[in-house]
């Protein structure tokens, strides 16, 4: 088998909340723990952004799935207990409308009859990201990568789906996920472009030092139709002061 150190984690994820007490410790059982900004939607494991910081150390995926799961489970139970109405009280039309929306999205992809192949686009996206947005990053290359992703997004619209089956259709689900990968690739690339420092697994030879004065903060990206919008949130260092990392 050929072995290659591949990128397998985005080192970020869905924003989730938590509740801390006066001493800075997490309040176990709080329904805020691990809840995303969509009320009632919880995230635990590497799908959330919470635990890794600027680096994701080996085996930390286990930390995030076990610890995140331990917090999210009771939080979800308490959230559900605190609700005034259950999903049974939501009119059927709400679910029906969403079902129609999802079916429409499926049909739109089934109807793609251009010249591009989604699996080829995916391979090219991987190559662009590996070449330009891995550990060592230069601003000109990051900008070029974003331009390349925008070009992929344009080509995505000209995909030939090859498969319109409504049963076990991997081409459609892959193509749908590929769009999300393109959106996320922009978040990673543009987030890295803005951060002019070196921290964790983000290394810019033009800015080789960690700059806590300006960049000790979490990057938050919000989806908008015209691309990701960036804001920054402070990092909670009340329990542990950051130190220089020297391996």
């Amino acid at each position: 088998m050929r072995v290659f150190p591949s990128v397998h984690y985005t080192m970020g994820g869905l924003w989730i909340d938590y509740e801390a007490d006066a001493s800075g410790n997490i309040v176990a059982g709080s329904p805020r723990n691990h809840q995303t900004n969509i009320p009632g939607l919880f995230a635990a494991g590497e799908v959330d952004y919470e635990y890794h910081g600027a680096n994701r150390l080996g085996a930390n995926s286990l930390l995030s799935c076990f610890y995140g799961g331990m917090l999210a489970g009771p939080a979800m139970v308490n959230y559900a207990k605190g609700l005034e109405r259950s999903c049974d009280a939501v009119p059927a039309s709400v679910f029906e409308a969403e079902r129609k929306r999802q079916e429409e999205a499926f049909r739109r992809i089934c109807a793609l009859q251009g010249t591009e192949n989604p699996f080829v686009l995916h391979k090219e996206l991987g190559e662009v990201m590996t070449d330009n947005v891995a550990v060592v990053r230069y601003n000109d290359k990051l900008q070029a990568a974003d331009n390349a992703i925008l070009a992929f997004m344009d080509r995505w619209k000209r995909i030939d789906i090859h498969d319109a089956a409504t049963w076990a259709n991997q081409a459609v689900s892959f193509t749908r996920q590929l769009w999300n990968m393109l959106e996320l690739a922009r978040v990673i690339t543009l987030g890295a472009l803005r951060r002019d420092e070196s921290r964790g697994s983000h290394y810019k030879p033009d800015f080789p030092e960690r700059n806590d004065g300006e960049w000790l903060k979490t990057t938050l990206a919000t989806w908008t139709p015209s691309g990701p919008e960036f804001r920054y949130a402070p990092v909670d260092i009340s329990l542990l002061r950051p130190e220089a990392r020297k391996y």
Partner: protein
Amino acid sequence: MAKNTIELKIKRQDGPNAAARWEEFSIPYKPKMNVISALMEVRRHPYTVQGRKTTPPVWDANCLEEVCGACSMIINGKVRQACSALVDQLELPIVLEPMTKFPLVRDLVVDRQRMFDALKRMHAWIPIDGTYNLGPGPRVDPNTSAMAYSLARCMTCGCCLEVCPQITPTSTFIGAAAISQVRLFNMHPTGKMHARERLEALMGEGGLQDCGNAQNCVHACPKEIPLTESIAAMGRETTAYVLKRLFGG
């Protein structure tokens, strides 16, 4: 002379009730390819050797390091994982077929649900409800732990069921994998506490007595699990259990 292309012959079937057909593909050769990377190449250009446009072949894969069992299929007549099937070691054309003992989903994807149902029937887990800290478990000697490790390598891939003459679409036989898991959980110091439940289940319908001793399973297992030893060990354990139950132990 170095190869330039790889020929693949894939058995296609659009769904459980559709007719099967064969399609041939030719893809550029790259050193160190495996069957998964060959299939990935096919879906990047889903046209048959005759130049006919087709659907990208459908297959399952997950870990790509032979520990999950998802990509089990019949490769050149032998059931194995596509991820660890190296193209350089295979005769050409590479013939790919879905496993035959499980309901077909589409192309090379089958539904291995009967294996997971068998694990449920056999109580193949250690019940810990997590409501309180049990503290450290009992210590296990190195021999027991080495044996447990070899049994724990089972990835429910389905190879042992595929080659077993006792497994048919209508039989209820649980197969070697689940029997071996009973052995694993019954030898665990905490799992032992529920040994009786597992032995009762193992003596039930589709259990141990349906084994026909063909011994194909142990040869097909990609993880080299001593499946026939497990079946024999469970034969002894169930016999001892029945005698104990008869004469009141």
